[in-house]
């Protein structure tokens, strides 16, 4: 059976065990690569696992004249790699052992390098790089084999578990023998067990970043090797058998702590191979697969094994873990844009989740999704001077279809100019191109789903057939264009040389967002200089809500002053001065610009409703009139349930110290402001200037607002103004649903004006709204809206105090009253003092809207509410403030 060996001979330094089974094509090459090794002191034992082809003869022929080589022929096929390798170990005596498979080969100096490394380090074993011949990439090069690692332990470098190969390593025979470490016979995936055990048994091992082993990967091979036959269920079963053996070893060896590391490798490497192929498995395979993986997962891991995995794996494995087979299949289908059995994707609080029908509570944290799938296709593109048109088909995958609205948009990346599609129904889109400027207009699909806006950039593969179209008019050419990142655009280019040059210059300017270098250098000097200039006694600087609006009491003080004190110079600061119209002779400045600073330090008077004192240090001869922005209901400042941080209080002090006058709407508020702001300055208890209009009800304003919203006189108007619940990301969705319900349930002659917090108003396009809902969120001045509203629906907003002055019905819609009270706290019992019905559901609200009779019951409450909080409002508050401040 074996060649004779001289027993007296000293054992060689290295034994190489080669195993072969039907490798007639490659075995010679494997053996030649050993024969040519630069290392001398070695023996080679070739174990032929009862090959049925010429492998055996080739081996015999090869070893015949080579004393270092010997052949062992097994009497029957062992069906795996373990028996031949163990046989090889038994038939050799070298101090170190290496393994080679019959279809692979070593680099010329593999043995020399490996022996040198194990002698140098004294490790129990040493690993070297493996090169796969399909792409010549090194196995785990970046994560493991990127550098020399000397005498490490698996417990400090668990990444090593990803390399479960046994053939790229050299082992001390004493290490194998003392631990009785051999390949497990009778199973496949013997390396998982052998290498796994070796890692945990070794005191230390080392890694050299040198290629030693060529792994022959034959693509499209007729016969797949054992490790590649993934389509037979036994293959998966065998892998689990091997993993169970490894798991058992970890338990027995006291290394259960490291099960999580091992699980991580199992999930990211082993299991992935099977889930990748899943859709190609037959039904019988799938059933068995689910059964076994469920069983196995519950043996060794819990759900938190997936929590840090990439999204796709996390969701797949979690669904396997909870045994939701249909959900798992749907998820794979979803990723492939195939139909799912039920809508699986849903949104909650702006986040998306994959739905499971399984019982249980904590699913969502494992099924959260960032990457949503959209199927988009475009065809029949046509381009004229006037428009881009095309047929389209778009689906947000696996949602309830009626919930998504699709629209198209062209956006000029250079200028930010946007063109919206005119018609999106019927699968045809038309984007007008009459008013374009030069630049590339990229095409986006906007999907509005449950209040979330998804913007999908169109790439070329989406377009079935892309004609190279170009049209020209006298100034511009318009052409269909694909950029180097494959995005689709309409390129608008100027035709005349002069326009081209101007365009290049503009593009350059637009590209640099930073202020010009002159401005940067100049600004601090200018500010210093401005500060030294004298204060102008007749300059008044106004601001409302940090420059976002022309509204509130500053507006009404300004409008009154315009008439009564025309000798003053008026300045308004806005975030976006061009977008706001202000009547009269007024200087508009951009908030926080140098110009704003100039007026800030030179104006004698500041009139504001939030806080501008932090923008510069107020000078002694400057006067700050703080109008504030509402009768307080929720607790503020020092009154809050949880005292704000020192830092926040310090900020508040900066503001309150700067105030010279504080405008209060009623005695109730006066008391609160003093206490909550620790404010000891003068309080002008005049009523709110902003409420002057509510008392006076000027006809021209009423008409203006009605015209603005195109409201016919006979329509009943309900103003719906919910507040912003910053603690509840879901509130926006809730509001959207409420709007839908409102729209469907209110009577035909009713229109709802929707007034949202500006942060929310940006998330809602008027397109999404039903026709009987008007978005009034961006309307500058809410006071004007009161005048046309026949009733008000709100919750905790100070809106109710102002609106109550009209003594028109107020419905409080406080579905989360308890939560609000516990989080914010109020100054009085809202339910007790409420100016109208306190409703807990939108249905209740609708019932009141549709039945005004019922509302009359609350007239006394409304009246006493108006009395208590509006007693001093007489329509001349602005005048009173001006008289006090400007003398």
């Amino acid at each position, binding site marked *: 059976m074996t060649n004779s060996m001289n027993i007296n001979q000293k054992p060689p330094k290295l034994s190489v065990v080669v195993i072969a089974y039907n490798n007639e094509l490659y075995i010679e090459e494997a053996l030649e690569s050993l024969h*040519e090794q630069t290392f001398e002191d070695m023996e080679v034992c070739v174990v032929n696992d009862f090959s049925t082809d010429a492998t055996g003869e080739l081996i015999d022929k090869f070893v015949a004249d080579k004393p270092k080589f010997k052949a062992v022929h097994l009497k029957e096929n062992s069906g795996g790699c373990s028996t031949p390798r163990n046989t090889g170990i038994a038939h050799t005596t070298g101090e170190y052992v290496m393994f080679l498979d019959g279809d692979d080969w070593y680099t010329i100096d593999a043995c020399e390098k490996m022996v040198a490394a194990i002698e140098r380090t004294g490790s129990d074993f040493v690993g070297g790089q493996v090169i796969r*011949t399909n792409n*010549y990439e090194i196995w785990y090069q970046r994560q493991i084999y990127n550098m020399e690692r000397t005498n490490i332990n698996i417990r400090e470098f668990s990444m090593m578990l990803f390399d479960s190969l046994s053939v790229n390593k050299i082992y001390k025979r004493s290490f194998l023998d003392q631990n009785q470490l051999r390949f497990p016979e009778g199973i496949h995936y013997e390396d998982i067990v052998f290498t796994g055990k070796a890692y945990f048994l070794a005191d230390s091992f080392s890694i050299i970043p040198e290629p030693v082993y060529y792994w022959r990967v034959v693509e499209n091979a007729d016969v797949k090797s054992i490790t590649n036959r993934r389509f037979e269920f036994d293959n998966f079963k065998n892998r689990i058998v091997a993993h169970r053996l490894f798991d058992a070893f970890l338990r027995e060896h006291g290394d259960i702590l490291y099960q999580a590391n091992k699980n991580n490798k199992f999930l990211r490497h082993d299991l992935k191979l099977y889930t990748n192929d899943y859709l190609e498995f037959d039904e019988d395979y799938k059933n068995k697969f689910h059964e076994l993986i469920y069983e196995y997962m519950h043996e060794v891991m819990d759900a938190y094994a997936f929590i840090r995995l990439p999204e796709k794996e996390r969701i797949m494995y979690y669904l396997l873990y909870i045994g939701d087979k249909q959900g798992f299949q749907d998820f794979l289908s979803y990723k492939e844009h195939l139909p799912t059995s039920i809508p699986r994707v849903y949104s909650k609080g702006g986040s998306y989740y994959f739905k499971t029908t399984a019982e249980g509570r904590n699913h969502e944290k494992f099924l959260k999704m960032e990457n949503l799938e959209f199927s988009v296709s475009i065809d029949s593109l046509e381009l004229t001077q006037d428009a881009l048109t095309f047929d389209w088909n778009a689906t947000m995958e696996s949602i309830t279809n009626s919930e998504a609205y699709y629209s198209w948009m062209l956006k000029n990346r250079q200028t930010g100019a946007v063109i919206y599609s005119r018609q999106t129904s019927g699968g045809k889109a038309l984007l007008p191109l009459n008013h374009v400027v030069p630049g590339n207009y990229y095409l986006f699909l906007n999907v509005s789903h449950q209040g979330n806006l998804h913007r999908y950039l169109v790439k070329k593969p989406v377009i079935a057939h892309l004609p*190279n179209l170009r049209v020209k008019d006298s100034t511009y050419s318009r052409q269909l264009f694909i*950029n*180097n990142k494959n995005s689709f655009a309409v390129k608008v280019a100027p035709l005349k040389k002069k326009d081209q040059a101007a365009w290049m210059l503009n593009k350059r300017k637009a590209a640099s967002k930073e202020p010009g270098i002159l401005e940067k250098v100049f600004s601090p000097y200018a500010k210093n200089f401005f500060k030294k200039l004298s204060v102008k006694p007749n300059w008044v600087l106004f601001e409302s809500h940090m420059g976002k609006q022309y509204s509130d009491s500053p507006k009404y003080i300004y409008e009154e002053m315009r008439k009564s004190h025309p000798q003053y110079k008026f300045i308004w600061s806005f975030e976006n001065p061009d977008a706001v119209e202000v009547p009269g002779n007024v200087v508009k400045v951009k908030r926080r610009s140098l110009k704003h600073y100039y007026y800030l330090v030179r104006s004698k008077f500041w009139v504001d409703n939030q806080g501008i004192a932090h923008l510069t240090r107020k000078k002694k001869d400057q006067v700050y009139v703080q109008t504030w922005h509402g009768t307080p209901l929720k607790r503020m400042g020092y009154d809050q349930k949880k005292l704000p941080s020192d830092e926040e209080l310090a900020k508040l002090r900066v503001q309150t110290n700067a105030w010279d006058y504080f405008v209060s709407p009623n005695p109730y508020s006066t008391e609160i402001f003093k206490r909550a702001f620790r404010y000891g300055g003068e309080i002008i208890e005049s009523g709110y200037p902003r409420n002057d209009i509510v008392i006076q009800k000027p006809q021209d304003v009423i008409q203006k607002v009605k015209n603005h919203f195109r409201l016919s006189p006979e329509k009943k108007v309900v103003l719906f103004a919910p507040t912003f619940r910053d603690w509840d990301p879901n509130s926006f969705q809730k509001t959207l649903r409420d709007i839908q319900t409102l729209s469907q349930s209110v009577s035909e002659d009713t229109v709802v004006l929707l007034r949202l917090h500006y942060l929310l108003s940006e998330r809602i396009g008027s397109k999404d709204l039903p026709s009987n809902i008007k978005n009034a969120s961006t309307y500058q001045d809410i006071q004007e809206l009161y005048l046309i509203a026949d009733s008000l629906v709100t919750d905790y907003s100070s809106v109710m105090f102002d609106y109550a002055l009209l003594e028109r019905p107020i419905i409080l819609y406080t579905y989360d009253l308890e939560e609000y009270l516990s989080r914010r706290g109020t100054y009085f019992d809202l339910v007790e003092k409420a100016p109208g019905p306190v409703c807990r559901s939108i249905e209740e609200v609708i019932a009141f809207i549709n039945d005004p009779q019922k509302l009359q019951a609350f007239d006394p409450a409304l009246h006493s509410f108006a009395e208590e909080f509006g007693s001093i409002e007489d329509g001349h508050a602005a005048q009173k403030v001006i008289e006090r401040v400007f003398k």
Partner: protein
Amino acid sequence: MQKRNVVFVLNEYNGHGGAQRVASILAEDFVRDGHNVAVLSINEQKDAPSYFSKDIPVQIVQKNGYRATAPKELSSNLKAFRLNTVAKELKRRRELAKRKQEVEKFFDKYGDQEVFVIVIQVWGMQWVQPLLYRPNVKIIGQSHESYIASKASSRYKRILRYYRQVSKFLLLTQKDADHFEGQGFSNVGVIYNPTPFRKQVDPKVLYSSKTIVSTGRLIEAKGFDILIEAFSRIAQDLPGWKLEIYGEGPAEKSLQTLIDILDLNDRVFLMGQTKDVQAALSASSLFVLSSKAEGLPMSLIEAQSCGLPCISTDCAPGIREIVGDYKNGYVTPVDDIQLLSRQMKRLLTNPELFYEFSQRSYESSARFDKEYIKSQWYDLFEEIGGNEK
């Protein structure tokens, strides 16, 4: 057959190079079939011979000898006062704009007739780009190297920028096409380079020549040193066998030195450039390509067309599309001298295996047959032609 207008766009129409060679084979064939063929050459080499016959008109874009440099950014160079660079860049832009107009004019003479423009090299595309929007012009862009090789230069970026809207983007191998499809290209296709000749030599005659042959420019990237070293390892085991390398180039001296050092002057021969590749191949036995990077090497295709088995380094994704490892030749990792020598020895010490590989090599070269490739081009014209847009 419908008479077609075909324009080849080349960096230089003359001089030696795989691209010129392939273009000329196709062009001559198209002319023979009665098509109207012209060549648009961006530059020309001074006093260099041309593969193209006199029948094919050549228009040179840069008649003034200007050669476009790589684009530079203006503003940063201006700020750094690199005025020379700025001046060069301005000149480049001016030239490009002017020549683009001339190219447009060149195509004006076709009127509304359909023209197929075959852009052989990526570089030329920047001059041809304005033609994209002419409905009668169908642009076929080619890349004659593997995507991996193109990544080493600006060509890869140019492909991403210029080739997305051409009617067809042709690659030399399926693997390259797959790569660009993965990059979102939906216009890719594969047409192999045609072999200029195809005639089987009896495998036994080939074997009896006892000659290992290789061809190519003598430059480092071709790895002839690897080949010589590999041969030296087995020269003793292959008595009577010699190695012949055809080609010229800067590495000639260092290769000769290597041959001297290895004392192989009577076994390894640098043969210089040959006019008749077919004859040289037909008089040899085994072709070895030892390059470090290639596209779809013509040399392997030509060798197989004479029935030579090939051993090649795995220096491009397309190698395995030509050479079937252990089927009609061997594929070895780049720079692996030992394996290369072992495979050469394996094949040359086993005549039966040699005959088998030789026969299979010739059969497999049918895919590169001129007539067959030409028919693929005509199919392509058919596919993208017509004014349906």
